[in-house]
């Protein structure tokens, strides 16, 4: 069973039943799931969670669907590693990496889609849909396949082959939409209104976004039931950024951790930085942008939770990094070379922002800091292909190897 109580508007606090709805009819504010925390407190314990499955469903008491009938392809409970080498390189004494590259479809989207698809099925939907440039499309296609549901996935017409195959292998109806970013976006908003399907990030968005809370739950549990001092999180729609904090606060409300005083900092690519720009200008009114960055998984020019991200930055004393494409590639390489983790471009944004915010003094060396790496590098190989050393090519002789290897050593890059 679920302890979800209702949907409530974040702006005017009007309440609605637990239906497929993402905005308030009166003020157009976003609605989010509320829970019966008194009931949760009576049943939940650290031990109960620790006895649960090694997936996000160990936090079933805090999720808006029945875990016993959930669509479970093993999302969540990913490693939290102490990043000593990267910490040393950046001058941070207690740095951790939350490695969400190892989810079933290699990104954190499996968390949100696991919850959205499960709730969609409970609400009677038999079709899942989304509009995506990669990660979300992969995850919706995989979850629909596992659940025996139909998937209809809309993608821009010029998406890279790897990302297309990463969805089509699961057998969805894949629709390439011709047009620029704005046109694709507007068409998909209309489609979501016209078809009675479960668009995971539109009409079932309140449930979808609850999946992101599980990153907050996991980090606290993996740190020995305590909240970090500082989190650095990539910001696309802003939902992940906001919900990680909600997860930490819910653990506190349930009596499982002390009150979190976590500073929440964001990470954006300069080529799509509506939140970072507003934060730098000291305004709560972000201006939508047309994305132009290699970090396509963060390329949301008009973020649904942009305002709430700015509120959270202010409330927690966080900061927001803004990094160039060159810094993103350098961030990907730095993470790989220090910690052995190959992240996608969004991970490069996070690591480059972590570096930037540390150098600017926003992150203190003694803070227990967690950087969230949300997707795997094999999804965006094009971004780094030209920035890496080419392999040595030799004849099948010792002499040929010695010559090539010594030349590489002489360059100082072996």
């Amino acid at each position: 069973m679920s302890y979800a109580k209702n949907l409530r508007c974040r702006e005017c606090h009007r309440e609605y039943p637990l239906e497929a709805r993402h905005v308030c009819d009166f003020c157009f504010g976003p609605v989010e799931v509320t829970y019966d925390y008194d009931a949760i407190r009576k049943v939940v314990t650290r031990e109960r969670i620790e006895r649960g499955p090694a997936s996000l469903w160990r936090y079933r008491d805090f999720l808006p669907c029945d875990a016993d009938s959930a669509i479970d392809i093993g999302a969540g409970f990913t490693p939290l590693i102490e990043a000593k080498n990267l910490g040393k390189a950046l001058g941070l004494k207690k740095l951790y990496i939350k490695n969400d590259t190892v989810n079933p479809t290699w990104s954190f989207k499996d968390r949100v889609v696991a919850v959205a698809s499960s709730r969609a099925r409970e609400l009677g939907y038999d079709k899942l849909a989304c509009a995506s440039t990669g990660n979300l499309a992969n995850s919706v296609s995989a979850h629909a396949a596992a659940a025996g549901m139909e998937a209809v996935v809309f993608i821009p017409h010029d998406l890279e082959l790897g990302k297309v195959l990463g969805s089509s292998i699961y057998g969805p109806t894949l629709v390439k939409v011709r047009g620029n970013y704005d046109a694709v976006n507007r068409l998909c908003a209309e489609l979501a209104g016209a078809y009675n399907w479960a668009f995971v990030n539109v009409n079932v968005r309140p449930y979808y976004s609850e999946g992101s809370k599980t990153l907050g739950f996991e980090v606290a549990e993996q740190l020995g039931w305590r909240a970090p001092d500082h989190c650095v999180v990539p910001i696309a729609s802003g939902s992940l950024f906001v919900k990680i904090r909600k997860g930490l606060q819910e653990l506190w409300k349930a009596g499982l951790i002390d009150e979190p005083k976590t500073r929440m900092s964001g990470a954006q690519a300069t080529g799509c930085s509506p939140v970072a720009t507003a934060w730098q200008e000291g305004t709560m009114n972000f201006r939508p942008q047309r994305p132009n960055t290699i970090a396509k998984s963060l390329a949301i020019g008009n973020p649904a939770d942009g305002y709430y991200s700015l509120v959270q930055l202010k409330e927690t004393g966080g900061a927001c990094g803004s990094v160039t494409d060159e810094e993103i590639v350098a961030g990907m390489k730095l993470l790989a070379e220090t910690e052995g983790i190959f992240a996608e471009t969004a991970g490069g944004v996070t690591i480059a922002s972590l570096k930037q915010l540390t150098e600017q003094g926003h992150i203190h060396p003694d803070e227990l800091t967690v950087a969230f790496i949300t997707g795997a590098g094999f999804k965006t190989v094009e971004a780094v292909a030209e920035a890496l050393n080419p392999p040595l090519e030799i004849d099948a002789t010792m002499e040929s190897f010695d010559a090539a290897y010594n030349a590489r050593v002489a360059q100082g890059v072996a």
Partner: protein
Amino acid sequence: MAVKRVRFTFPENLIREPIIYRLGHEFRVITNVRMADVDEKTGWVVLELEGDPDEIERSIAWAQERGVRVDPVTGDVVEG
């Protein structure tokens, strides 16, 4: 008749222009301001546009030609 919810974002050079008034006169579209925040440098307005679907699209194209950015109310639908 159809109703479309959109978010208009105005650049600084259009803040003083009566764009919504003119849109309602140039096109057979009923405009209904539901939320707004406008200051001296920038501004946004959440609007409901009611009318024939083609006429609504023409009115949106007209606003865009004048430099208004038009987005879905709920933020971007396309995600990473």
